[in-house]
């Protein structure tokens, strides 16, 4: 177990802060120092404000001294993916389009982290507008995987995952539209949770695909993830798709829920294309659950093969409309020397957006264009119904599903040039977004060349407490979380 402050879980740090053996300023200082040391190799951040973070930390210490500590995250440095608005801070979505944009308002999750006492630390690197699976689509350069800096951290929330793995933040927030929290969590060997659609407010999250996007935590442990989720979850009247769900004390529920559970193994998630090392690690995890007295059942999600296509139609269609606002008029990049207003749109968007964003805007515009709506978008929404139904049917038999998070471990930077090959990284994660389900990735081992492997657990709608408990039942008996990348 590392003695380094920046590698400690929230649970330990919160205790030390409470006991007075540690101050938020000390902790934040340690995180800043660590960031300075490893950031040249990792590039997890687009920007950070050391003075601002230390000021927040000092304010936290003052609150605590005055007996006015705010909440579970008092004094804990937490990083935000650069698609989540923080008043007065840059919000770039890793895009040239928003390179100089400063948000005049706070996202709901930002306000809730502040209310919980967190020290907001930095703007985390990601794929441009959260479109990608490697963070290579960042206009400000890719992030690297702390376990092997020649490899990708995954994406789109690669910076959020890498920062936690490298000790540049104690926990972080990311966003997940097709696997963008779980896949980088798996590739970086940390815990990443994608909540049920509607559990966490999207207000202040730069929209990629509105009906799929969810904000969720990255943390070193399942219990840490439960604490961060508890701080950000809950209904928000500023998000019409926010769900009025009971928010339990997720951390307390971990102790209350001990199983055993009925766990389903969807056979479609173990086909060819799955890296053998990953397959083996997942099988061992399944065996472990069996050993814990859990009933393991094979189940079928027959429409799995259609998830990728359904996703790329719905996600790009929504994105083509969501990204229309980036036109260089009210904010964002404006091209010089435009002939007229239309030319200004064409040039500003051409200069402001990267290749993958352009590709998805083109695809999304096409599937919505006159004559194609029924054939593509409407049909995809119907297939989405069938995909959702598959999961709900499975849940008549089991409490949760176990799958690999990613078919492959971290790949080399620049290795995947073909978009379709890149899209295939998400085959195990996309169905969850289409069905609106909660799912997390928890570390379950390493490949031969010490690349982390993630286990995906998919839960029932708004049953995050069970999902976390199931994950912790595995985590408790393994020491993956106490292994750190050698940076």
């Amino acid at each position, binding site marked *: 177990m590392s003695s380094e402050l920046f590698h400690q879980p929230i649970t330990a740090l919160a205790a030390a802060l409470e006991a007075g053996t540690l101050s938020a300023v000390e902790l934040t200082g340690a995180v800043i120092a660590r960031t300075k040391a490893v950031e040249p190799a990792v590039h997890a951040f687009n920007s950070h404000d050391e003075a601002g973070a230390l000021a927040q930390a000092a304010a936290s210490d003052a609150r605590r001294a005055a007996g006015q500590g705010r909440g579970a995250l008092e004094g804990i440095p937490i990083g935000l993916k650069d698609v989540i608005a923080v008043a007065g801070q840059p919000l770039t979505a890793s895009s040239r389009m928003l390179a100089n944009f400063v948000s005049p308002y706070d996202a709901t999750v930002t306000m809730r982290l502040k209310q919980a006492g967190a020290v907001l630390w930095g703007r985390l690197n990601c794929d441009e507008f959260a479109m990608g699976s490697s963070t290579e689509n960042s206009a400000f350069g890719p992030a690297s995987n702390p376990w092997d800096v020649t490899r990708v951290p995954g994406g789109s929330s690669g910076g959020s995952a890498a920062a936690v793995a490298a000790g540049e933040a104690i926990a972080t927030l990311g966003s997940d539209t097709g696997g963008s929290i779980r896949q980088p969590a798996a590739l970086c060997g940390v815990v990443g949770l994608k909540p049920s659609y509607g559990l966490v407010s999207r207000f*202040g999250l730069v929209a990629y695909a509105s009906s799929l996007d969810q904000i969720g935590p990255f943390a070193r442990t399942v219990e840490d993830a439960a604490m961060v989720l508890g701080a950000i979850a809950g209904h928000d009247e*500023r*998000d*019409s798709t926010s769900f009025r769900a009971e928010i339990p004390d997720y951390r307390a529920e971990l102790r209350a829920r001990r199983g055993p559970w009925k766990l389903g193994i969807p056979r479609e998630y173990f086909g060819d294309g799955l890296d053998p090392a990953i397959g083996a690690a997942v099988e061992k995890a399944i065996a472990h659950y069996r050993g814990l007295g859990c009933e393991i059942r094979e189940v079928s999600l027959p429409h799995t093969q259609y998830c990728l296509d359904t996703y790329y139609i719905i996600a790009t269609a929504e994105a083509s*409309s969501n990204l229309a606002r980036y*036109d260089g008029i009210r904010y964002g990049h404006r091209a010089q020397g435009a002939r007229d207003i239309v030319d200004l749109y064409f040039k500003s968007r051409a200069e402001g957006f990267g290749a993958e964003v352009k590709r998805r805007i083109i695809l999304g515009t096409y599937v*919505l264009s006159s004559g194609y709506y029924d054939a593509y978008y409407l049909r995809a929404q119907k297939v989405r119904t069938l995909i959702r139904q598959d999961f709900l049917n499975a849940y008549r038999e089991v409490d949760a599903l176990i799958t690999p998070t990613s078919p492959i471990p971290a790949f080399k930077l620049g290795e995947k040039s073909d978009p379709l090959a890149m899209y295939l990284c998400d085959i195990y994660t996309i169905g969850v977004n289409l069905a609106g389900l909660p799912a997390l990735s928890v570390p379950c081992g390493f490949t031969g060349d010490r690349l982390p492997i993630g286990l995906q657990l998919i839960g029932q709608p708004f049953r995050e407490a069970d999902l976390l408990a199931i994950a912790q039942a595995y985590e408790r008996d393994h020491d993956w979380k106490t292994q750190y990348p050698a940076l």
Partner: protein
Amino acid sequence: MTSVTQPLSPPYEAVIGLEVHVQIKTASKVFTRVATGYGYEPNTLTDPVVLALPGALPVMNKAALDAIIKAGLLLGCDIAPVCKWDRKNYFYPDSPKNYQISQYDMPICLGGAVEIELPGAARNVMGEHKEIPLTRIHLEEDVGKLNHGAGDSLVDYNRAGTPLMEIVSEPALRSAEEAYAYLTSLRATMIYGGISDCDMEKGQLRCDANISIRPVGQAALGTKVELKNLNSISYVRDGIAHEIKRQIGVVERGGVIAQETRDFDGMTGTSQSLRSKEEAHDYRYFPDPDLMPVQVDAAWKDRLRAECPELPFLKQRRFLADYQLPYTLTSVLVWDRALADYFEEAVKLAGVAKAQTIGNWIVNDLLRELGTAKIALVAAKIRPAHLVALVGLVDSGAVLANAAKEIFVEMFATGDQPQAIAERRGLKSAPTDRGELEQWCRDAIAGNPKAAAEFKAGKESAINAFKGPVMKASKGKANPKLVDETLRRLLAAS
């Protein structure tokens, strides 16, 4: 000019459909809670949602939904049990998101109609009534405002996000007059319902017209031209009349009507082409994933139906039947809800028999005074009770007609009771001293024995011979009723 060589053109008829946008009167915008308003400093009514900042999300305004459902009920539309929100995608600098949240295939109101009245044979004759069917009414958001400078344009987003109803008529209008009547009636309905103030100067009501012509009797529709920027009700009439004439001209010169959008300039009374339909848009409508559907149940509709006022034409029919008012009076009274209510309040106090008298006072005197004072009826000091009291004084003969007019003007200015004004200003018919009046009458009878004899012999009109001298003696201040009574009494006694 026509010549014998020129073939006589067939009679043409116009086919007109109107697309009317009406701003709904709400405190906050349709998808966010920043205030709505007109005439504020540029960009002072914005927030992250209005500006479409990254991460902003829309949230429906309940009051805007109430208003459009109410409008639908007033116009006899079917209210959809479920409706949803769609994105209409197009790039324009006044549209912050570059899509407009609107309703595409599931509008909240379907069908319905606007009752119109065409000009009658004469001012005092009711014209023909028609029902102009509606296609639909849907709710959407307004855009910002572009101010065009010399070398560039300036955008103000204050108006962006204001709730907007789009009211689409069937192509059932046949003339500029009908279009004028349609807008007049629709506007009154919206104002009556408290849905909008429909101030066209402030852009609260905007109208586009789709116009085509065809030879009378032909079933097929001609090529339609969309006429934009008809920003006053008279411009709508002028613009449509002008467009019909233009199209007939084109056809008669052997040309063909091009499908296009034209801009009407009310100042010059001319129109010019904006764009041809070749560059028609592809709006890529799809359901807005940021918003949930709306479900309207019976209870909701009933609650709003209970708030629906009686509309002008119904009121007019009732006024004609219940109060026996002449058409001209009703046609003034019913178009202003406050005025009609004022009238009915007064009639309640004075009795139905006095309805026409009261109607005349309101339409002639009250409206005139309101006009010169440039104030609204609600601000007037004179309440229905004042008017009723004045009418009472005239009936009792306590004041004479011309004096009553003076009293009314002062009553309007001061809000004092007519009785008090009459006394203060010495406008009561005098003398009240019967002794003096009786003396004048005796003198008059004595002065004309011939007439006295004729009267006794049964010649009614002979009595008038005495009235002149009595009035002369009273310097015109004697109360004619009193004079008549006294003369009869004395003549009978003599």
